[in-house]
Structures are given as C-alpha cells and as structure tokens.
C-alpha cells in the first residue's frame, strides 16, 4: 500500500492550490485525478478572470492553469493522472484505479476537490446527438479544438451560458440565440454585453419546447413562458440550429464525501446537498477536507482560495506550520476570498456559505 501525508482528490484549481500549500509547508502530498491532464476545467476557460491582482485578475483561465502546474512541478508535488478514485474508506485509505489495476493509498489527511457536473435538462429531443452540456462544447472548442456544430442555441444565461456562447463564436460557430427561463439575465452583464454586440439575441422568459431531427439536431422549437412559467400558446418559434447547448447550473460531485460519512446540508444557493464544513474547510469527519465546487458551486478564483485554505489547514493539523503562522496565512486567504464574495452576485454566495459554515459549527457545539 502507498502512503502519503495528504491525498488530494482532483487536480483542478482547488485541488492543485491545496497541494501547493501543503508542499510549500514541507508536507508530502499526492494529487489523484481521473483525467489524462491536470488542471480540471481551467484549460477550457480562455477568458480573462475577474477579481484583483492577487486573484490573478485579467489573466486567462488556461494561463492560470499553466501557472498552477508549473508551481506544483517546482514543488515536486506528485500528480497521478488517469486515476479515477472510486472509493474512500473510513481509515482514510483512497482506492483508485490506474493502468488497469486497483491501488490503495493511505493518507493522514484527505482533501476532496472533485468539482461539479453540469445539470441536465430533459425535453422532447434532448437525447438527440447535438444536444449537449455547454461545458462539453467548451471542452471541444477550446481544449480539443473541434466545433461540435455550426449553429448553436444556448440555453441558460448564467456566466457559463454567456461565456460559452461567446467562445463558440470565437471558435467560428454561429450562435442563433440564447434563451433563459427566468425574467432576467443570470450572469454578469459584461458577458451578456459581449454576445449582444455580436448580434446574439437573448430571449428571457423562454424555454425549449423540443429539439427536432432524425439522427441529430436539425432545428429547435422555443416558446415564451408566462409569469406562471407556463408556455404561451402561439409564441413558438423554430430556429434552424444543429447544436443545442445546455447551461442550467452545476451540481457538486459529492459521492466521495457521502462515502466517508460526512454530514450534509441542503443549500440551494450552492447547488443542493453539500458537505458541511468549518472555516478551515474541514468536514464533520475529522481529517477530511473539501475545497472548490464540491463545497458549493462558485468560480475557479474562489475554488483556488478554498484549496489554499484547506491545504494550509492540513499542514497546520500535521504540525508542519505552527498555529501563529497558519493563522496569518489563513487570514490573508480568507480576506482574498471575501473580496470575491461581495456585490450583488457574490453576496448571495457569501450568505449561503455562512449559512453552511454556521450549520457545521452548530453541529460541533
């Protein structure tokens, strides 16, 4: 059996940031990821990030990914790829598969940074080839450099829908429209403004009625919704598109935390059931930490800060950092994190997080 001090599950922004903090403090850390490449979703994010200098604002996501990888390499962090973690055991043993065989890794601390998955949307025709997650399309155009289709309908006006619509056009596709069931745009206005300038209409209070086609999407029918979310008869419109991208939110990938017996709280603002955690990102199971989207769906910038927090807390718990030094580091990280959780978009998440952490502290008392 392999041994390590800290096992980090997931080599996305949260996991890599956590590993970097542990390694910086002199700890032995192993990152395990099911994908062929590290970086999680950062390498498909080709837009410039928001925030301020300390959040690497103005830097494109994939460059941030490159920086994180360079840092893990410099610190000698072990990153195991093509290694899906399929089980966690109560004695903090990680079961993963690599190269066609099962391997067990025993760790003193575990950081679960498994990320999130896109929510599906079911409608007539939603199983036709050409209907896909916006994230799937984004991976195809920006990582694999292949267009999934020529003309696209985007469903969902959150930042994912707005950004992927823009990036589809950057890759050479045509976006026929973006529709949103709610009465206002969910994501940042500046992202919406970019696609409007490119001539893409945004239809609010609209949903998809069905996708049509024999072997793949050939057209899609959209319909307006009234104030009770009911389709308005006669408002149907057919759009000639070959691709429908679905961007209707994300759900944290929490299976491993359930397996470990972590207590959960239901917080709709964070994507549903999320493991309770304290200010150090530690769950109700001692020695098991979480970071990133699994602890509530947010953005890569906050995921990295949560990872740093979890990594620092692990290092402290292992005695690699003294209490004073750890507190200093964690205070700086929390300040950076809170700066991102302000304003009309961030405040809801901050309140949801506070509620989640409040719930956890209550449980401990």
């Amino acid at each position, binding site marked *: 059996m392999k041994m390590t001090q800290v096992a980090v599950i997931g080599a996305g922004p949260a996991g890599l940031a956590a590993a970097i903090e542990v390694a910086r403090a002199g700890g032995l850390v192993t990152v395990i990821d099911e994908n062929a490449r590290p970086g999680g979703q950062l390498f498909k994010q080709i837009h410039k990030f928001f925030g301020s200098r300390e959040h690497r604002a103005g830097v494109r996501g994939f460059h941030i990914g490159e920086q994180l990888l360079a840092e893990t390499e410099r610190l000698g962090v072990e990153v195991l790829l093509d290694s899906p973690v399929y089980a966690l055991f109560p004695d903090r043993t990680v079961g993963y598969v690599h190269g066609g065989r099962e391997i067990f890794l025993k760790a003193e601390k575990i950081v679960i940074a498994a990320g999130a998955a896109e929510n599906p949307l079911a409608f007539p025709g939603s199983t036709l080839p050409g209907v896909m997650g916006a994230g799937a399309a984004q991976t195809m155009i920006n990582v694999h450099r292949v267009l999934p289709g020529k003309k696209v309908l985007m469903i969902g006006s959150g930042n994912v829908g707005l950004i992927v619509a823009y990036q589809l056009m950057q890759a050479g596709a045509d976006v026929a429209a973006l529709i949103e069931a709610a009465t206002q745009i969910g994501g940042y206005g500046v992202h919406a*403004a970019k696609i409007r300038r*490119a001539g893409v209409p945004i239809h609010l209070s609209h949903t998809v009625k069905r996708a049509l086609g024999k072997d793949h999407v050939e057209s899609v029918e959209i319909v307006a919704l009234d104030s009770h979310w009911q389709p308005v008869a006669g408002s149907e419109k057919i759009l000639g598109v070959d691709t429908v991208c679905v961007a209707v939110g994300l759900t944290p990938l929490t299976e491993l935390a359930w397996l470990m017996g972590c207590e959960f709280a239901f917080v709709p603002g964070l994507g549903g059931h999320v493991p309770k955690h304290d200010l150090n990102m530690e769950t109700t199971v001692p020695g098991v930490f979480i970071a990133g989207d699994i602890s509530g769906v947010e953005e890569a910038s906050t995921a990295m800060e949560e990872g740093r927090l979890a990594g620092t807390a692990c290092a402290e718990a292992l005695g690699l950092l003294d209490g004073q030094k750890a507190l200093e580091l964690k205070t700086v990280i929390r300040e950076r994190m809170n700066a991102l959780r302000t304003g009309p978009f961030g405040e809801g998440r901050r309140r949801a997080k506070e509620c989640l952490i409040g719930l956890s502290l209550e449980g401990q008392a």
Partner: protein
Amino acid sequence: MKSGIKYTGIPSEEELRASPGAPSRERLEQGPVAFIECVQDIPCNPCEEACPFGAITVGEPITNLPELHGDKCTGCGVCIAQCPGLAIFKVHLHYTETTSLVEFPYEYYPLPRKGDRVPCGDRQGKYVADGRVVSVKNAKAHDGTAVVGVEVPKACYLEVRTICRKEWSRHG
C-alpha cells in the same frame, strides 16, 4: 420590454448616464477619452491598475464601479485590453471635422487590417455605419484582446461599439 443590462445585456442610457465610468459631454468635447461601460457591482479592478495616469479608481471594496477622472484621462486607451469584461471603449468625438474615432476590444478571428472598410455595429450588433479601420493594436501584453480603432461619421460616436463581424466576413 424592460431595459437595462439585467434584461437586455445592454447598458441602458440611464445606466450609462448614472455610471461614474462614463465621461461627461464636456469631457468628450475636449478630446479622446475612455468610456467605461461597467454598470454592475462585480468584484473586479484591473482597470484601476491599468491606467498609468490614475484616471480610474475602484478602491475598496473591489465591487465598486470604476470611476473615470476625466481631467486625468489622456485617452491613451491602454485600459481597453486590460478589462476582463471587454467593457471599456475610447471615444474621440472630434477626430476630424466630420468623423469620430471609436476604439473597442475585439477578440475574433480574423482581425481587420488598418485601412479596411468595415461595417460598424452598435451594442446589439446592429449595423450603424461603415467605418475605416485606423488602428489595430494587439501587443503581447493584450494577451489576445486586440483593440481596433475605427473612424466613423460623427453622428454615431455614441452608438458604434464593434464590427458587424458576420456582414464583414461575407464581404470577404
């Protein structure tokens, strides 16, 4: 239909008027100036650091709207490519007797070239007028965000914000 960025994805006239990032009419008369169309309190401040003259302030918290100080802004336009939201433009109202110059960020392929005649569009991508490309800045520091300057008829300096990409590529 409701207007405003939350409903249309386009900042309304009222939102722009109320925004501390939009230059005054007097300032526009005086020469080239940045035009910041950032009207939501999002956590972001690279524009503040981008300006070498201290003409943009965001301060704390970083969700504050950027404020443009018209007296300090020289209209150099270096802030345009630094805005992650692509929400900063530059307007030179009296470029010539009859034309204005508008600079905007542009991240599509292919880039226009200096001297090209291009169909120019407004905030909803609708054709406004033909323009002449006078500059295409794409320094390494821009990291792919090119800044395109177009000379357009004076009447449309407040409207033109992009190139009508599809119409343009159709013309070859």
